[in-house]
């Protein structure tokens, strides 16, 4: 589904990603961990096409297509979803309206008819249940005045609405209390199928208690320096990253 080969990206003169290689197949969950400043969020942004970053080298294939050739919106319409670490507020635009446009843009891209108002409302009700999102929130402006937990739930709600092929969730667990974490993580798990894939970027093992990864990767200074199965996350939780980093520098 996603194949990343030797991906380099920089912001200004500063190189942040320095040769990432990653293969993600349908049905898989990958976790990316690593110390602060290692390039985890940048990786998510570059996949989504954020124009702040320049790809200087490497290839990314998504669903058999050269992802780097596509605009941000076309990548989204092709089924790439980014769960933002800091979801922005869009004052005056209701969640419902925002999602209606987003869902219909995607349908248009796939050559499908737009949803009727009734179909759309039913869909919203169903999907908001996935993350126990108060349906009242869908009548409020996008992320405006949402609590930290609501914002993150809202990201997963949008993921549920858009049914992406690949979701890249950037620190979806940050700033969540234990209950909210459980709800958000369970929501992500519910959305997981054999046809889609998820990349979760996180600092903490606890998220992975719910979202059980097939692979765990450690990103450090713009490279994946180590990969393993879910037990790697437990080891990292106990021992930190030093043993890996020291290994590297020896």
């Amino acid at each position, binding site marked *: 589904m996603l194949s990343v080969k030797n991906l380099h990206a920089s912001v200004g003169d500063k190189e942040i990603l320095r040769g990432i290689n990653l293969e993600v197949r349908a049905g898989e969950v990958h976790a990316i961990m690593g110390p602060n400043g290692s390039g985890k969020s940048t990786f998510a942004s570059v996949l989504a096409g954020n124009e702040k970053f320049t790809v200087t080298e490497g290839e990314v294939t998504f669903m058999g297509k050269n992802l780097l050739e596509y605009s941000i919106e076309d990548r*989204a319409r092709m089924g790439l979803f980014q769960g933002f670490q800091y979801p922005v507020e869009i004052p005056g635009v209701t969640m419902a309206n925002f999602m209606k446009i987003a869902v219909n843009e995607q349908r248009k891209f796939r050559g499908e008819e737009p949803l009727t108002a009734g179909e759309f409302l039913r869909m919203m009700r169903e999907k908001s249940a996935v993350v126990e999102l108060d349906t009242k929130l869908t009548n409020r402006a996008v992320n405006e005045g949402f609590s930290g937990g609501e914002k993150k739930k809202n990201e997963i709600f949008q993921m549920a609405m858009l049914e992406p092929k690949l979701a890249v969730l950037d620190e979806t667990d940050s700033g969540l209390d234990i209950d909210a974490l459980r709800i958000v993580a369970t929501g992500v798990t519910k959305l997981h199928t054999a046809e889609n894939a998820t990349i979760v970027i996180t600092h903490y093992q606890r998220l992975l208690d719910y979202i059980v990864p097939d692979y765990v990767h450690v990103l450090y200074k713009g490279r994946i320096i180590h990969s393993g199965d879910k037990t790697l996350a437990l080891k990292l939780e106990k021992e930190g990253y030093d043993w890996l980093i020291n290994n590297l520098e020896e």
Partner: protein
Amino acid sequence: MAEKEILESLEGEYKYGFTTDIETETIARGLNEEVIRLISQKKEEPEWMLERRLQAFRHWQQMPLPKWAHLDIPEIDFQDIIYYAAPKQTKKLGSMDEVDPELKRTFDKLGIPLEEQMALAGVAVDAVMDSVSVKTTFRETLAEKGIIFCSISEAIREYPELVKKYLGSVVPYTDNFYAALNAAVFSDGSFCYIPKGVRCPMELSTYFRINAEGTGQFERTLLVADEGAYVSYLEGCTAPRRDENQLHAAVVEIIVERDAEVKYSTVQNWYPGDKEGKGGIYNFVTKRGLCRENARLSWTQVETGSAITWKYPSCVLLGDNSVGEFYSVAMTNNYQQADTGTKMIHIGRNTRSRIVSKGISAGKSQNAYRGLVRVAKAAENARNYSQCDSLLIGDKCGAHTFPVMDSKNPTAVIEHEATTSKISEEQLMYCRQRGLSTEDAVGLIVNGYAREVLAKLPMEFAVEAQKLLAINLEGSVG
């Protein structure tokens, strides 16, 4: 479907830039007493009206051009303007079938069907093309309630007492340069009278459109809501594209008698000129309403068009407990300039006013809010709240705010809040990551920003206004 329309319009730039090929009757360029007599004569006006026009004209000749606005106005040669243009007709029209098919097609293109569709929409339209009212619909339905809704020319002939009493009573010809000019040469416009205690059962609507080349449109609107009456009035404007500039100097007067309420909504989309700033309408408008006791006047405007806009819909809160409101979205792009805002004049006791202004500047445009809140000595417990926001798109445009507060009464409370913001990269990224194009994202963000004002518009108008905001921002980002 709405999106498709927006996309089509984006390709076509100014959607309403077509001219209608019908015969127009114009008079020679220039302005003098003879021209005014001719206008008056063509409109079959009584002598007293001609006298008023001449009086205004003589006064206008003594007046200097106002220069205080934050506008760069090219010199206007007032002798190079055609002051009267009417679609040529040989006889008065009896029914819809007699209207020139070309003219009907123009209105259809504008999306304002004059016929049965209007019944469904519940809108009565007084369509003004160039200077003569073409057709007034729903007159009979309104007449049953005693509501008068007709062209101002007709009102001058048919209801001289009402016109004499109210015309110029809120905006006298001495008020300002363009008001004086309008008083001298106004060609047509709408007249509306709602009798005591009557709630107008439908939205009243006038659609203005400038067609003939080199003509100025000087329409005059007079709206009277008698004691306890209510009316919601809509005004929409478009103009075909022309390389030369056209002058539009309108006057709108509203009288809101005791316990009455008037809502006046405008969507102004005159041709703004091309991307290099060539052509476009100069829009110099005086709009003012007078509120008696317990009366309420609410102005809502969405200004997206014109090369230059100079406009301050105002409320004179004369009666105790009267309320004035002003909700505005003014958007400028490319080389457009707007200097717009309101005046709230508190004279009565316990008068309240509320101002919500949302400026949007893109391209190389300049957008100014100018507001005056004046509290007279007698206005005990007057209250004003003003909120004045500016949204900048790109870094070559300007937003300016000139709020003036002048209170002569210590019990008055005046609040003013102002913000300036930009559409952030993060917002665009967020929207695009959900599959919206940049254009759609900008349109959505701008509409969200203006929502508080758009929500004040009647439904059909709100939809049109939303589309206009999105369309007119084409190419302003990225």
